[in-house]
């Protein structure tokens, strides 16, 4: 997985719930507690793991120190932390380089999708561009105006 492919609000929900469980819990137990199917929960766990906020180990999930630090921030602090973290992912690093090369420092959604397919070899590049915009917005890295169809750096 190159970037998280779940909604940010779900990631927050999982981390908050995990904190309530004292920072470590059996995956089946937390799924049951939250009334979620494992299939529903696993992509969220994967996303949190990719960002370094959570660790999985023999059926348990636990918060990492970084995850704890992330949670201790306010709404805005979390976004800033997230943004820094996203910048360590190849996906965002290369994308930002690509946008920066453009004369007006902006790209269209189609250009994003093409870039993801050709340069980053994403198979479902349309869906991945939606996630890219969503996470880029959350991490305060990107802006997107769908009326003008322009993706810009923040």
């Amino acid at each position: 997985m190159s970037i998280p492919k779940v909604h940010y609000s779900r990631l927050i929900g999982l981390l908050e719930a995990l904190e309530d469980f004292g920072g470590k819990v059996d995956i089946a137990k937390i799924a049951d507690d939250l009334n979620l199917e494992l299939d529903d929960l696993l992509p969220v766990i994967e996303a949190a793991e990719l960002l370094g906020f959570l660790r999985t180990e023999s059926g348990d999930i636990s918060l990492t120190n970084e995850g704890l630090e992330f949670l201790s921030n306010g709404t805005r602090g979390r976004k800033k932390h997230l943004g820094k973290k996203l910048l360590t992912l190849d996906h965002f690093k290369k994308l930002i380089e690509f946008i920066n090369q453009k004369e007006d420092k902006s790209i269209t959604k189609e250009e994003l999708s093409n870039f993801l397919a050709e340069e980053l070899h994403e198979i479902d590049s349309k869906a991945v561009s939606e996630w890219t915009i969503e996470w880029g917005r959350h991490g305060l890295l990107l802006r997107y105006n769908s009326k003008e169809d322009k993706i810009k750096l923040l």
Partner: protein
Amino acid sequence: MSIKTQMVTPILDVRNVNKEFNFHGRKVPILKDVSFSIHENEFLSIVGPSGCGKSTLLRIILGLVPPDKGEIIYKGERIQSVSPHMSMVFQSFALLPWLTVIENVELGLEAQGIPKEQRQKRALKIIQEVGLEGFEDAYPRELSGGMKQRVGLARALVTDPEILLMDEPFSSLDPLIAEGLREEILKLWSDKSTSPEIVIMVTHNVEEAVYLSDRVIVLSHRPGTVLSEFDIDLKRPRNKRGQELYELVDKITSLIA
């Protein structure tokens, strides 16, 4: 009523509220003699079985629907039309799809005749507080359910209401999203420097009500009438999965079921 709540003057008084609806020419009583008070800095939940009139009660409190009998008194004055001191968050978000996030939020201020520049400034501040920063230009269709409800929340808060009314605000959300959003509502409410001072939430989820509230009012089956009131004296931050909380949840649930 508990001894604790009798000692301070209430901000809002719900007095003997009755409401009937016309249903195919037949009068159906929805609410019957509902009375209770709400005090400063209180988080109050109203729970009850579906159809007990709890959402109607919230609309009556707001001044959107008049009661047939009884009255709502806000700081000594009778509410007769939609109160500028309150705003409401809806289960269905109620966003305008052709407006962006910031435009939807500003809508809350437009009715008040506040100049454009000031509107934008206030909207941006609230957008930041509820975690919508970065999504100012997004349209509702580009947002997840959780983000849509944040817009609903921002639109309600932008007018700086003293009382925030919430009608099943989490029930159409994915459980994980609801989990995170509940925490944010608590943070907003407990921060004394920002509005609102009082939250009144209607929910069918007893666990959620006990976890969030200072007091829970239990309504009966239709016509809804106050069955019981519970002071939730658990220290905050609370353990959502603690034994004490579950005991209260069981007690309240047994009254409803």
